[in-house]
């Protein structure tokens, strides 16, 4: 219902890494080492605007009490968090408080939401110094109203064990999923309330536009609904409650009636990372049926604390913080030349899709409303 994003909290091990790295970097430079040689908020002189930074975000797990304290220690800026339940919640918060912005920085809008935020003029330009970023991260948007801080591919995940037990092959097309053997065995987070769900829906549109047939994505979604596909509000319900291939089987409320769901292509890698290099879940690589998601930090139009906003963006993109995204936030880093670590088969179980969806962000922004309506009409779901 809420959490539609599969990023995970800093585990103790990783926290130790991040904290020790921060401590090392601090002992060398005494500060961030970028443009901010001095405290952004100096208690002695400046107790003004920049001393409190308000961030609207969803529950991004990399950002813990400790990480925030580290930021405060480096910059003197106190951070207040407004936590919505998902990326859509961030957009809705910004829309609702448009005339009286409450936050200074929006953290966690992705490339399916960003264009809508632009349309409503919700974001402002930043003045942060940005390091060289991975080229994939800058494809959807390369302006200065939003800065990527993590990325990942959204795609189908399948329970290989259940498939082999039932003599079903791993699907190579989306059309296969409308066959009777998949009846009731697929779970999809809703694009209305979940960002992985939204990314995947965009991918299905591209997928069917690439086919020669007349079938549209929404015909397929209607067929899936007829084939008793399970629709959930958030990623958590689809992956944890319904999907049989993930950690969900051990969790409360697990139903375990779906062999296939929408998650990240690197989710099996995360399963392996925590499961001792072993997982029965596999990413399904179908051309155009995966979506390259980039998450952004963006200054709020009408928000204050400009220097603190810039300092926080720079903090997120420091090597110390961003290189650890795969372990602390279960997403790829956006820095150039960083891949997933090989620990416990993390990288091995995380294939990079050969041909992700190619729909551009402008079009997503323009057509999203119609797509969502069509999706609701064809699935009769939330």
């Amino acid at each position, binding site marked *: 219902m809420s959490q539609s994003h599969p990023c*995970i909290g800093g585990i103790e091990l990783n926290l130790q890494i991040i904290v020790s790295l921060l401590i090392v970097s601090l002992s060398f430079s005494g500060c961030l080492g970028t443009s901010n040689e001095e405290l952004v908020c100096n208690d002695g002189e400046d107790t003004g605007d920049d001393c409190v930074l308000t961030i609207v975000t969803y529950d991004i*797990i990399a950002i813990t*009490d400790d990480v925030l304290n580290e930021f405060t220690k480096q910059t003197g800026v106190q951070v207040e*968090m407004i*936590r919505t339940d998902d990326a859509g919640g961030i957009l809705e918060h910004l829309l*609702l408080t448009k005339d009286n912005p409450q936050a200074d920085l929006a953290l966690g809008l992705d490339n399916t939401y960003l264009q809508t935020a632009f349309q409503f003029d919700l974001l402002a330009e930043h003045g942060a110094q940005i390091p060289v970023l991975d080229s994939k991260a800058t494809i959807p948007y390369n302006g200065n109203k939003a800065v990527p801080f993590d990325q990942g591919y959204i795609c189908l995940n399948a329970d290989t064990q259940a498939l082999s037990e039932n003599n079903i092959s791993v699907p190579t097309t989306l059309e296969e999923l409308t066959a009777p053997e998949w009846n009731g065995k697929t779970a999809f987070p809703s694009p209305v309330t979940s960002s992985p769900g939204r990314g995947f829906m965009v991918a299905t549109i591209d997928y069917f536009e690439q086919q020669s047939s007349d079938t549209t994505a929404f015909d397929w979604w209607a067929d899936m609904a007829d084939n008793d596909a399970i629709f959930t509000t958030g990623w958590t319900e689809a992956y944890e409650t319904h999907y049989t291939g993930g950690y969900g089987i051990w969790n*409360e409320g697990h*139903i*375990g009636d779906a062999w296939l769901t929408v998650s990240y292509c690197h989710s099996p890698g995360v399963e392996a990372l925590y499961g001792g290099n072993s997982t029965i879940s596999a990413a399904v690589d179908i051309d155009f049926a995966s979506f390259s998601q980039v998450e952004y930090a963006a200054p709020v139009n009408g928000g204050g604390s400009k220097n603190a906003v810039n300092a926080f963006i720079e903090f997120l993109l420091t090597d110390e913080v961003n290189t650890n995204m795969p372990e602390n936030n279960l997403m790829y880093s956006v820095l150039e030349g960083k891949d997933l670590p090989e620990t416990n088969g993390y990288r091995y179980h995380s294939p990079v899709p050969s041909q992700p969806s190619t729909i551009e962000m402008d079009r997503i922004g323009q057509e999203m409303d119609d797509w969502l309506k069509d999706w*609701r009409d064809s699935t009769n779901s939330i």
Partner: protein
Amino acid sequence: MSLRSIRSVPILVYLGLMLIPIVLALQRLMDVTGKSPFAAIFSLPDHPLGTEALYFSFIQALLSAGLTLAIGLPIAWWLGRHQWKHLNFIRAALTLPFVTPTIVAAMGFLALFKTGGPIESIGIDLRFETGLIGWLSDATGIENSGHIIALLLAHAWFNLALVIRFVEPKIATIPPRFEESIRLLPIGKTRFSRARYFWWPMLRTSIGSAFLFAFIFSFTSFALVRWLAPDLWTLEALMAVEGGAAGIHNYRTEASLLVLGGATLQGIILLFALGLAGYWQQKQSISNDIVSESFARKTAGGASLFARIGVSFALLFALAPLGSMLLSSVRIRDRTNESYRWSTEAWDIALTGDLTYVSAADALANSIVYAIACMVVSVLLGYAVASSIHALESGGKKKTAIMVDLLSMLPLALSGVMVGLGVLLGVLKVWPELFQWYGLPIIPHAMLTTPFVIRILLPALRSLDSSYDETAAMLGHSQFQRFLKVRIPLMKSSLVVAATLSIAFSLGEFGASWILLRSGSWDTLPILVDQLMARPKYFELVEPVAMATASILMMVTFVLFIITERFREHQGGGF
């Protein structure tokens, strides 16, 4: 005359506090949707889940209330008819679920049903479509019937106290001579005819009230539905999820429409149920003479073996979810070798906040500040309103008194999510700067608790013999002195119950806080539990940390509850 105008001040403040946010929110939603609240009700079916949510809310609430009675009535009967050694302990243990924060209840039931949990280990798995549950699902054609059973059980668990508190004292105080004389009449020859012609007429208003309140609480269930039956929707849960997009111009107006229609319809249904409950309770208060409990109990004698077994099961039922939750916080699954280990790591992480923006300790501090502030506001305001109503009643202004009394009950028909949305949209309209105020959650919490405080204090004021006040006046004490030296001490137990109830309610409040959280940083313990549970749980400690956080919340609530129980006079029913 001046006194009369002073009297109306608290009533106006109260109604203002309750109604202004709601009216402003309605106005905004009407503005966004271009529809009136009543027209919006008829748009509910346009939402893909609107009709389903309405039906499900209704049916599960009816079933939950029925199950509550089915479990609660035998227990109330056994407890009320017999002498029990540790009666106060049994009563307290059975009332405990009612003050348990719903998120804690949800965690408790999840822990009870999970893989490797107590229920699964005795061979019942409510989560999968296997065995008995599979058969049930096939037979009824309802998917995941195990989830529905879990939800109904959780609702019955939560509402059990209503039956115990409403019906048990009634059974315990009916004079034995009534029953004795009916036995001698032809009409009372058999157990069945005695039940039909004697017990049912005697108990029906109490049973009816317990049923209605169980219905109301189940109808507006949010945290329990959210976690125990994630595929199913009550109106409350649907409004909570869609509420994020409500009140925004030119953006997903269907969400605003759903919230407007859903809130109106839910308000009407709750008002109707409350009106009926109020009517029954009033009828009950014009009741026959009662005898002291111990007298009636002595006549009926000690408990039979059957009764003992039944009550023992009830106690197990009341305490099991909480026990398994505690267990889940220290029993940790090793992901690498699929075994379990005992550890307090989860408690360490919860208290230090290694996984979250705030630590459980900080969230607890927030929760306590809000709870105390909520208590102060709701007790002061509630007392002022109750004493104004009482003054109107004793001043011969009966009609005005009834009017104000009814108005004061209106906010009881507001659910947590409705209040949360009301404050969110209302504050946005009149005073957006309030979003930066640390104390904002006090407003919805006080909105939700003050009506209950009035319900507790008003009967206490009514039963307060006016001759105490008059005597103190004849002894020369001013009104203020009489308030301090006579009223407060005489109402101490009711005041303590009201205060503790508002603290406990505020500590456990989930719906309104969950909505409001979208506009400010107000992390409370229940929200922290929810935040942790909503996370991906690849990491094996996430869920035990949630359980540990819920356990902290449970313990704080219990300490309060024990305090209240010490002050509670056992009166004839009610909260």
